[in-house]
């Protein structure tokens, strides 16, 4: 039986007269890698921010990990991880200090923090850099570190907002290895991306155009439906009709 960890129904966000997210309805299953695609300004980030409890919806329903986004936004936060397109660790703290800080914030015990940081540093082969400032690491390593920190507290769902921006292809591959590993451990991945090759890695995809979800299915099914050779084509066909662009 499928367990649904994100359920939205008619979720809408308006800024004044502008409807950023227009009546979207979808569900995400446990352990799934759910891709969230769309052109710039299509409303991806806004939708994601609502699900993370960073932004209050204007109307509609949404629950994340069974928790209502309206009434218990704070409670959601213990159950999710988040990594945004802006790099979000503290550059003026060391690798270990960042791990310790976020571990503490999510109320892990001291011994858990200790074993977790050893594990994490080992897995990312960051031993020589463990006491270096995060600001001095190459971008690709920073992203991997940020992802690992975001799932440090073993959340039910992790939200990734264009996590691989500005990273070379090799580092992206490594990043996706981490994602698969996390998904294998039962963590649901909710990811927005621009890269169509990455979209192929997802279990299911939703494509947003002008604030609405225009398509939602597995990559294979989408390609079949739109008679496209690859996701690029699918995306192009859908996004062509967009009225608003950045």
């Amino acid at each position, binding site marked *: 039986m499928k367990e649904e960890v994100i359920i939205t129904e008619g979720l809408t966000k308006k800024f004044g007269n502008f409807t950023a997210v227009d009546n979207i309805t979808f569900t995400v299953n446990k352990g799934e890698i759910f891709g969230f695609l769309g052109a710039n300004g299509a409303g991806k980030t806004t939708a994601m921010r609502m699900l993370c409890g960073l932004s209050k919806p204007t109307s509609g329903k949404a629950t994340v990990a069974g928790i209502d986004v309206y009434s218990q936004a704070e409670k959601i936060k213990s159950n999710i991880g988040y990594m945004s397109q802006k790099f979000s660790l503290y550059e003026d703290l060391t690798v270990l200090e960042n791990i310790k800080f976020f571990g503490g*914030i999510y109320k892990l015990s001291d011994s858990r923090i200790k074993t977790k940081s050893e594990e994490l540093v080992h897995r990312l082969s960051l031993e020589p850099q463990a006491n270096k400032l995060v600001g001095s690491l190459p971008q690709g390593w920073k992203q991997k570190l940020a992802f690992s920190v975001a799932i440090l507290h073993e959340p039910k769902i992790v939200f990734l907002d264009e996590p691989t921006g500005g990273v070379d292809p090799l580092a992206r591959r490594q990043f996706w290895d981490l994602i698969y590993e996390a998904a294998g451990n039962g963590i649901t991945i909710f990811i927005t991306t621009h890269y169509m090759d990455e979209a192929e890695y997802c279990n299911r995809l939703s494509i947003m155009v002008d604030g609405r979800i225009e398509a939602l299915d597995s990559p294979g099914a989408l390609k079949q439906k739109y008679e496209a050779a690859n996701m690029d084509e699918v995306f192009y066909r859908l996004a062509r009709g967009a009225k608003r662009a950045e």
Partner: protein
Amino acid sequence: MRTLLFLLQKEFKQIYRYKAMVRIIIGMPIMQLLLLPLAADYEIKNINLAVVDNDHSTYSQQLVSTIIGSGYFRLAEYNQSYKKSLKLIESDKADLILEIPEGFERNLVRENKDQVLVAVNAINGTKANIGASYLNNIIKNYNQSLRMKLVTSNQGNQAIAIDLVNSNWYNPEMDYKSFMVPGILALLVTIIGGFLAALNIVREKEIGTIEQINVTPVRKSYFILGKLIPFWVIGNVVFTIGLVLSWLVYGIVPAGNLLVLYSFIWVYLLAVLGLGLLISTYCETQQQAMFINFFFIMIFILLGGLFTSIDSMPGWAKIIARINPVSYIIDVFRMIILKGSGFKDILPHIGIISFMALLLNSWAIKNYRKTS
């Protein structure tokens, strides 16, 4: 509680790493405390007088030497034309002109009466007023002494003299430094406290790390406290350094109890930091936060009663002074450091500042939005 410890640890580490900032927030106040109090002397001395003597008589020369002999005036120039003396006023080299008319002595002897002209640069009203009244009084005294000469034979007509005996309590030498040093220190603590916490939060907003904090289950009050406490500690450090410097350099030792002084500073810093935090919750960029902070701090400083007396302000400005934390710290420093007032005397001050601290900080916590 444990979460707060993690937040604090992080903040302190970041501050410690930011050496350039630490140098400025510790070094600048020290430098300014060493220099600025020496500049804050507005005792009116050395009033510069230009004399235009058109008479060149015994009487006129006597009058001039009496005036210079009084010690209040410095002779900037003697015996140029009025026009030339006016040039001195224009270039701020003279503050007053005394013009003695031609035939001054003759008129005094024949008609018992003559006029002299006193022209005052009145842009600085206070200096003008005091200078003019000194000069008028010296002239009056000179009148009397002339009179005395004429009536020396007439016994019993000695002029009446009322002597003003001064007792200047708490500061008998009238040393402006003992007033200004604690005052400047108070302002420095205010500036440091007011800006740092505010800029810090907005900085996290600009860099984007605050977003990461907002998706964590951290409580708003903890986050604000995590920002407040480190800068509260820095404020205390700056204050303590300042206190030691005032003792070493200026020989100023608080007459009152140190603990009372510190207990006020502790509450005061909370209030000032609270204001900064509140402003930061309304701003998106460091630039905005800084200008708004600058606006308030400038008003607080200039209307705080250190540079100009609050008594001299119009009613509405006195109301501003009443909600101005700086006016309280200036007052309390003066009371404890110079007069040795006790805890009971400053209780109303502590009460009001505590109320402000509570109000500003809870407002800041309320207004800090993890969710938009």
